[in-house]
Structure formats: C-alpha cells, structure tokens
C-alpha cells in the first residue's frame, strides 16, 4: 500500500489525508465541481476531477472513482463516511481491481448493512434487540400485527440504510398504514429497496455506541463507548466519551455485546456497534456501522488511539496486538479524561435546521490546549448547496466532563465563520444548558429543551454593528447589491473595517 485514494470530501478527506501523511502514504483527492476550490484537494498529493455536482455523477459514481484510482495509480481506497462507505458493491469493485479496501470485507458490509439481517445476527448471538418485528421483507399486514403486539409508540425503520431516512415514529395504530406507505417510498428513493422493520419506540433512551477494532487474525478489541444522544432529525449533533450515564458494569456489558456481534459477523477493521440504552440501563442492539464514524475523534482523545491510522494499518495487514501491534497497551483501554465533539453545520437551528450554504468570508478556528478542530473549511471557498451541511467538528478533551464543557463553550465562542450561517451559537447554548451539564442527555433532549430556540441575546453584536453603521455614515452603504466575489469581499464599498482604517478609539495602551 503506497497511495490511497480518498473517495470522499470535506473534513473527513482532510482527516484521512493527514493520517496518510503520518504513515508516509501518498494521497489522491477526488472532487466534484463545487469542491474544486475546497481545502482538501489542496492538501492531497494528487487530485482528480469526478464531474458534476450531483453526487450520482461524482462521489457516488463507482466507475469514475475507479477510473481516478487507475489514472493516478492509487493502490488503496478509503471511503470515509457517507457516500459509498457502506456500499458492499463499491468495496467489491475496489477489491476486483486488485486495490486495497480500507474497511471490512464486502460480505461483512452486506450482512450488517441490512438492518433486518443485522438484528437477526445479534439476536442469534444472544445480544438483546429492541422488541419488534424484523422478518425480511415484512408485509404491511405483518408490521401492523407486530405493532399491535408490541404496543405504541413504535419506530419504523428502513432495512436498507440509516441517516433518518425511512424512519418514522408512530404513536397510534390509525397512523401506521399511512406512515408505512411514506416510509417505504422514502426508503425506496434513498436505498433502492423499500424493506422496513418495526421496533418499539424507547422513550428517554440514550444512543450509546461502542468502537471496535478487529484484525484479520481474529483479534477483536472494544475501545469504550461514545454517547451520541443529542440528535436532531435522527442525526447526531453532539457526542462524548465516556458517556455520563455509563458506569463500569454497563460499559463491560456493552463492550461484551459489541464484540459478540462483531465476532459473529466476522468483522475486520474499524466498526461501531450502536445500542439504545433505556433509563434502567438495559441495552438493546441497534445496528453496526461498518465504517469510520463522524464522531470517532472523541474515542481517539480518551484512548490515544488514532482510528484512521488504525484503519489504514489494518487494511495493510497489521495486527492489533503484540509487539508490532496497533494497540501497544493491548486490550485494556481505560478512558483518560473526557472528550466532547460538536458538529458545526451550515444550518439555521432557529428555523428547523434549514441548510444555509454560503461563502466563507472570514475564518478563524479555535486552537489551544485540549482543543481539536477537524475542518474542511478555507476562507474564500463557498459552501456548496449540494452536500451535507456539516462543515467541521470541534472536539475538546479535559480532565473532567465539567472541564470539557467549559473548554467546548469557550472554543465554540472563538470559532469565527463569517458569510455562511452556522449552528455555532446553538451548539454553545446546548453545551451550556444546565441539563446537559447534569448529563441528562437523551434522544429527546433538543426536542425538550431547544424546540423554541430562536438565538441568544445579541445585544453586544447589534450595538457594535450600530456603531459601525454610524461610522459608515450618511447613506454610503452598499454598492447597489452587486455580489462581490468572496476574495474581494473586504474591498466591498461598505466594509466598516475599510472605513475604520484611520479610526482609533481608546487605543489599547490608553
């Protein structure tokens, strides 16, 4: 393995490029048109254009990705997360070309990618699953009967994939038929199959997952849990390790359940086994993500294991344990301190998290002790409308959970992104909320505490803007609305700073 093609974009492409550098592997970035000027193609050793913005013409186009690998001489493919990361067909196509796939074998991806199949596998291995109905290709009639048996509310899920698509919470029997129809339609569109499963809806549940690493020789190690309960639209927003809810006993049970499922699936490389944990501490298997997780950094910070490097080394044939192994400390990885991750997205939390793409006029990313920013941003680039709104992740590490919260709040407050609206202020409000501080994180947290959030007090920002406006003075604002290219933004006619050039009010040494 010498040259790795990264079949992804954004912050995760940056993350993988850096891991490759540390391992002295050459890198190939691939990009669709809107990402031509993004950060990650500049960091790679080589770059290859994929084509149009539509993901089906670019990041999801197996033929073009393989062509890029052939043209650049890449001998390995890292899929990142999302896009084709959990496509058994893509993994198989990569292997067919004689390239190394940085992930589990295609048959493992296929087995675990079907949620019905994964549920049966966990059940057969003695791992508890959420009460429900998981027969393959269940009919509407069978699902309605199952719902009556297990009781409402229930969750409908697409068997073919996640990300909240095809997922419905149904509170009453009369709502079920219509929900099944729309969930099937959504699942068909998203995953190419309309198979559904149905589970009891667990109120006040926590979403807790276990990171596992496995080598081809059968060694399997769990690296503790991550709690990912703070979600919007069934998508994670804030994750932490360890979970404030998980003690040594529950951790041991979760790790045992995770390694049991992974072993039963013949797992190799890095993976994540997801559970719901109810208020009584009972855990239920949810699914296995056969790839790198967005939230992998919190595990990296508390264990000291570089998961992306581990993925690459496992793919190259390294062993987990032993003198030359990836895990020098062997199987015992007690978490050191506490880590929290916040996902920074171009979205408007005050308006149903609607996406808000735009130009990056000014970028200032926080740094400091225990502060890590995994970012795909560059000043002068424009966040495209075509892809996921996630821009970057702020990850902090401190001795205690309280220390991590204070560090996160400060880091978020120092993250400057101008020109493109983000959820930074919202994230800061969430981590500062007293219920978050008490560790009362559940999948209903945002719904309960932030449903009506409309932004915090902006008095100082408005007052400062008003002073700038007065300094601008006498109706000189604007150039008639002609859009300024991002690079020239500061040369715009009404830039208070340009006008403030000669201003000196209360000099610093005064």
């Amino acid at each position, binding site marked *: 393995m010498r040259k790795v093609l990264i079949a992804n974009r954004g912050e995760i492409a940056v993350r993988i490029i850096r891991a490759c550098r540390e391992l002295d592997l050459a890198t190939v970035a691939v990009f669709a048109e809107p990402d031509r000027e993004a950060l990650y193609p500049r960091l790679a050793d080589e770059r290859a254009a994929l084509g149009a913005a539509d993901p089906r013409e670019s990041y999801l186009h197996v033929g073009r990705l393989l062509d890029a690998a052939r043209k650049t001489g890449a001998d390995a493919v890292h899929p990142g997360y999302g896009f084709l990361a959990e496509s058994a067909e893509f993994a198989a196509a990569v292997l067919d070309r004689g390239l190394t796939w940085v992930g589990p074998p295609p048959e493992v991806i296929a087995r675990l990618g079907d949620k019905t199949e994964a549920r049966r596998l966990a059940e057969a291995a003695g791992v508890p699953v959420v009460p429900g109905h998981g027969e393959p290709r269940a009919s509407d009639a069978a699902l309605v009967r199952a719902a009556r048996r297990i009781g409402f509310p229930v969750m409908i899920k697409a068997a073919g994939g996640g990300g909240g698509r095809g997922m419905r919470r149904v509170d009453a029997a009369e709502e079920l038929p219509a929900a099944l129809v729309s969930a099937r339609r959504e699942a068909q569109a998203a995953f190419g199959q309309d198979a559904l499963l149905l589970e009891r809806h667990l109120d006040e549940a926590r979403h807790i997952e276990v990171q596992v690493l496995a080598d081809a020789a059968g060694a399997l190690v769990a690296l503790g849990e991550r709690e990912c309960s703070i979600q919007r639209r069934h998508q994670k927003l804030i994750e932490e390790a360890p979970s404030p809810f998980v003690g040594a006993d529950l951790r041991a049970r979760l790790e045992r359940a995770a390694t049991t499922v992974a072993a039963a699936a013949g797992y190799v490389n890095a993976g994540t086994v997801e559970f719901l944990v109810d208020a009584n501490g009972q855990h239920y298997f949810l699914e296995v993500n056969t790839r790198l997780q967005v939230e992998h950094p919190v595990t990296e910070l508390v264990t000291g294991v570089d998961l992306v490097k581990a993925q690459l080394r496992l793919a190259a044939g390294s062993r987990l344990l032993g003198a030359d192994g990836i895990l020098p400390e062997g199987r015992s990885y007690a978490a050191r301190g506490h880590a929290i991750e916040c996902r920074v997205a171009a979205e408007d939390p005050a308006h149903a998290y609607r996406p808000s793409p735009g130009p990056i006029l*000014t970028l200032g990313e926080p740094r400091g002790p225990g502060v890590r920013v995994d970012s795909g941003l560059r000043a002068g680039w424009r966040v495209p409308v075509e892809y996921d709104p996630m821009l970057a992740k702020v990850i902090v590490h401190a001795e205690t959970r309280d220390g991590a919260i204070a560090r996160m709040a400060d880091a978020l407050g120092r993250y400057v992104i101008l020109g493109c609206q983000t959820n930074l202020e919202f994230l800061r409000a969430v981590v500062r909320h007293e219920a978050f501080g008490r560790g009362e994180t559940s999948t209903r947290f945002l719904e309960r505490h932030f449903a009506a959030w409309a932004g915090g007090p902006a008095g100082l920002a408005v007052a400062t803007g*008003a002073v700038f406006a007065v300094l601008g003075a006498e109706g000189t604002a604007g150039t008639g609305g002609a859009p300024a290219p991002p690079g020239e933004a500061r040369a715009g006619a009404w830039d208070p700073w340009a006008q403030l050039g000669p201003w000196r009010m209360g000099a610093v040494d005064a």
Partner: protein
Amino acid sequence: MREVTLRIDGAAVPCAVAPDGDGWMVEVGGQTVRLRVTVLEPGVALVETGDRSHLVHSATASGRTYLHVDGVTISYEAGATTRAADAAPSGEDRYLRAPMPGTVTQVAVGVGDVVRSGQALVVVEAMKMEHVLRAGRAGSVRVLHVRPGDRVDGGAVVAEIGPVGAGTP
C-alpha cells in the same frame, strides 16, 4: 445622537448611537450598551465593555455585513443613518456633512474629481477619533468647503457632489 436601523433576519432593529466619553453609548431594544472600539487590523477590532474585552471580527459582501463577537454572529444591512432631530431631506445625499464637531485632517479629492458612491472623501477628527466621510452618491465633486486643518461644526456641509460634468471647471 444618531439613529441607525440594522436589518437583521428581515426585521428592522432601530438603534440610537451617541458618543460617550472616549467610546459610544448605544440604545437598542430598551437596553443601553456602552462600548469602546479599537481597530486592530482590517476585519478585527477590540470592543471593551466595562471590565471585559471582546474580539470582534467583521466582513462585508454584497452590502451585507457579518459580525462576530463573543460567540454570537449576526449579519445585517445598515439603513441610512439619520440625525435624530433632522431627517435627511430628499437629495441630501449630494451633501457631505461632518457628523460631529471636529478638525479636518485629510481631503482626499479635488473639485471636479469623479467619485463613486462610498468613496472616502474627507477625514474629520473629533474626540481623538477619526471619521471617514464617504460620498453618498456617485458623481463629481462640485464644491469643497474645507481644507486640512479646518474646524467644522457638527452637521456642517464639507463638500457637495453633483452629476458628472455639471459644475466642472
């Protein structure tokens, strides 16, 4: 006292701004904020409130200003500022006025120069602060009433701008 309206998220936010010692007093939404502003470099300033300091970052594109301070980002379009007592009459934008009493430190144009809207024409210093006066419209400089070193009253007309060609010597 000057009034300015910031358009934030489609809402008009009226603010009253007045000099206050070596800083400013801003009334907005029934609150009074006192702050001092020190420009550190283009796009970065230090804002002091009481015993706290805040770094402010700002950028402007397409007439919209983005401002970040203390974890809060707002974006706004600034409405034309008016003196509280006398709203600008129609055609007022041809007059370049000193916003407060002070001393002219720079005159960047001459009579007959063609200027664009927003172009810096005159700098007035008042209360240890320099204020750049910008053209309120495109045109040519018809009259200049001041030279560097002149003292001006608040509201005094320092220059007049007319259509290009008209009044050019």
